[in-house]
């Protein structure tokens, strides 16, 4: 046992020395993640506003102008062009200069005044479904409200004419939003980006570590020592656990500062969960490095793991909207558990009791994959 600790310490010290001495590596591990976090945090913004809109006002009356002002008031749609006819509006949509066209036809005010249906046309560029959904919803919402106002005004005039109050009840649904009341998508996305940056820094670096030793020939000298694969793997992973913890701490600090990310739950619990998560990402890296002959193969292996792990994690797309078989696959994905933990702890102040499944799964996966890597690691050459 004492001997194992001596061996483990030797590997940890050696890995740490090599990492600290490698300026480029340190930059990749400690500085690049913060840059990536800030840049991606801004880039991965799902809030839709300032959708370029071409306005076609053929009615040209104070009423039509008033409605257009009202439609554009909340900033979701932004008037970027004005056209005289539908044909020209279509051309602007085709050219990509606008994503929405709003057409108020001639006679709009006249029809309203006569109490006849007054059609308004909204044309949407559907190539970005999320965006056109939101833009379409904004337009519908405004015109529904406007239609209700028209009816209400007419009822009031009717009441006055009849000399008694005529009223009608409507359903008034008002959603109240918890945890992220402003629906700020950065608060949802930034933990995801932190996870992404962490997996890049840990999995690929460890995957390439042993492969590099194999490639430059230093592994042969290690293989001739009586060190056991498990000790070697653990020793190679431990310094990067420290790196990962530093990365998460900086990521949270920077996110709290730059993106107003709330930190509501227990940091200690988050630390433990992060430790387990790092076991899985580092374990996968080590496993990849045991099956790779060259650094290039190890790098490709890392990418091969990271891409599906990110896409099936629920960071960018909700797991609930995936097909059933894909939802089943996400249970195998450690990233899924960690992002759930991270979001729940940060935004909802969830604790170990709420996240026992996720935390337990991460721990089990971490042990399993490091064990698998140790078993897979051969102390013989081929």
């Amino acid at each position: 046992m004492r001997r194992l600790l001596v061996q483990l310490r030797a590997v940890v010290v050696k890995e740490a020395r090599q990492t600290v001495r490698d300026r480029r590596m340190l930059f990749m591990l400690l500085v690049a993640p913060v840059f990536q976090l800030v840049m991606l945090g801004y880039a991965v913004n799902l809030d839709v506003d300032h959708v370029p809109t071409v306005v076609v006002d053929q009615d040209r009356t104070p009423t039509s102008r008033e409605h257009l002002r009202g439609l554009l008031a909340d900033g979701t749609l932004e008037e970027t062009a004005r056209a005289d006819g539908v044909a020209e509006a279509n051309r602007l949509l085709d050219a990509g200069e606008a994503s929405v066209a709003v057409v108020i036809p001639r006679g709009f005010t006249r029809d309203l005044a006569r109490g006849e249906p007054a059609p308004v046309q909204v044309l949407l560029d559907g190539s970005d479904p999320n965006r056109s959904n939101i833009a379409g919803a904004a337009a519908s919402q405004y015109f529904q409200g406007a239609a209700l106002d028209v009816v209400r005004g007419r009822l009031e005039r009717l009441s006055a004419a009849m000399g008694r109050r005529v009223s009608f009840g409507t359903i008034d649904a008002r959603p109240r939003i918890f945890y992220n009341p402003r629906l700020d998508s950065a608060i949802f996305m930034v933990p995801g980006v932190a996870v992404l940056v962490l997996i890049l820094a840990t999995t690929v670096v460890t995957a390439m570590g042993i492969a590099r030793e194999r490639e430059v020939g230093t592994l042969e000298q290690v293989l001739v020592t009586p060190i056991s694969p498990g000790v070697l793997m653990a020793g190679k992973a431990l310094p990067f656990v420290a790196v990962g913890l530093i990365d998460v701490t900086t990521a949270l600090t920077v996110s709290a500062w730059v993106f107003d990310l709330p930190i509501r739950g227990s940091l200690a619990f988050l630390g433990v969960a992060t430790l387990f998560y790092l076991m899985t990402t580092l374990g996968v890296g080590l496993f990849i490095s045991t099956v790779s002959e060259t650094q290039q193969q190890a790098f490709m292996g890392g990418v091969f793991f990271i891409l599906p792990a990110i896409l099936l994690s629920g960071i960018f797309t909700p797991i609930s909207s995936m097909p059933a078989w894909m939802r089943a696959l996400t249970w195998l994905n450690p990233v899924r558990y960690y992002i759930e933990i991270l979001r729940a702890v940060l935004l909802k102040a969830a604790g170990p009791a709420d996240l026992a499944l996720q935390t337990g799964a991460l721990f089990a996966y971490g042990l399993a994959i490091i064990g698998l890597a140790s078993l897979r690691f051969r102390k013989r050459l081929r």
Partner: protein
Amino acid sequence: MTPAIRVEHLTRRFGAFTAVRDVSFHVEKGEIFGYLGANGAGKSTTIRMLCGLLAPSEGDAVVAGHRVSREPEAIKWRIGYMSQKFSLYRDLGARENLEFYGGAYGLGGRRLRRRIAEVVELTDLAEVRDVPTGELPGGIRQRVALANAILHEPEIVFLDEPTAGVDPVSRRAFWRLIRHMAEAGTTVFVTTHYMDEAEYCARIGLMVAGRLAALDTPAALKRRHAPGTTWHVEAPAILRHLAALRRLPGVVEATAFGRGAHVRVAEGAPTGEAELRAALAAAGVPPTLVEPVAPTLEDVFLAVASADEQAAGTAAAWEDPA
């Protein structure tokens, strides 16, 4: 006394290629055993099998009391290994490398510090122990690798081409260390393709194309494989006239050697200095020097290799170390 290494019908194949074919020998405790052969003759493959790095395809070996086929890890505690290519960490200094490898062999604390001080002193590395090994010249780097191989006081040290590419002065110093280790009781298994170094070995195994073609003390090898008289001959463009020398009665061998050629003549044959001079004069190149010399291990190697070539019909590439 049980031998330090006992090799029994060891064979290693890589696909269709047989790198080591049915090799058997043993090495006594405290012996310096030299393993000679051209590049690709199977020297490194043998060493890697004996160190537990490569599994044998057939046969087995007992190293420090353990079978390489079944207990390679038990062997690793008791041997030291210096590979042909410098394989310590180039971004770490000698001391840092020694600390890592000492730890890997379970050495820690005061004992590790004491051993590092000892090997640094023995291999004369005190001044450079903190310089990254990648920045050291080849000769010093080899000493670091040797210090590393003996750090944990192994019973047997395997040195694979330890002096390849090292200047003659460093080579001599290096061999002093090797002899010093053997005197202290360590068994040394060393491969080389420098024939002069092989003279330092108690016994020599000659590898040709994967087979152990000869095995004995240097003196016995010379008696058996280079009998008769060996003449050193120098003449202008002598390499173009070796065929003429080979046609003389009793000439067994005529090969390039240094600036001239070595010509070996069988016992009792009627070819002597006068005949050699006459033959070259007849060819238009009167020799500048003809003198009898003691056969070297290179003569032995050439004799064994050419005999083997004729027997097996294969050629081993002889690469000059320069």
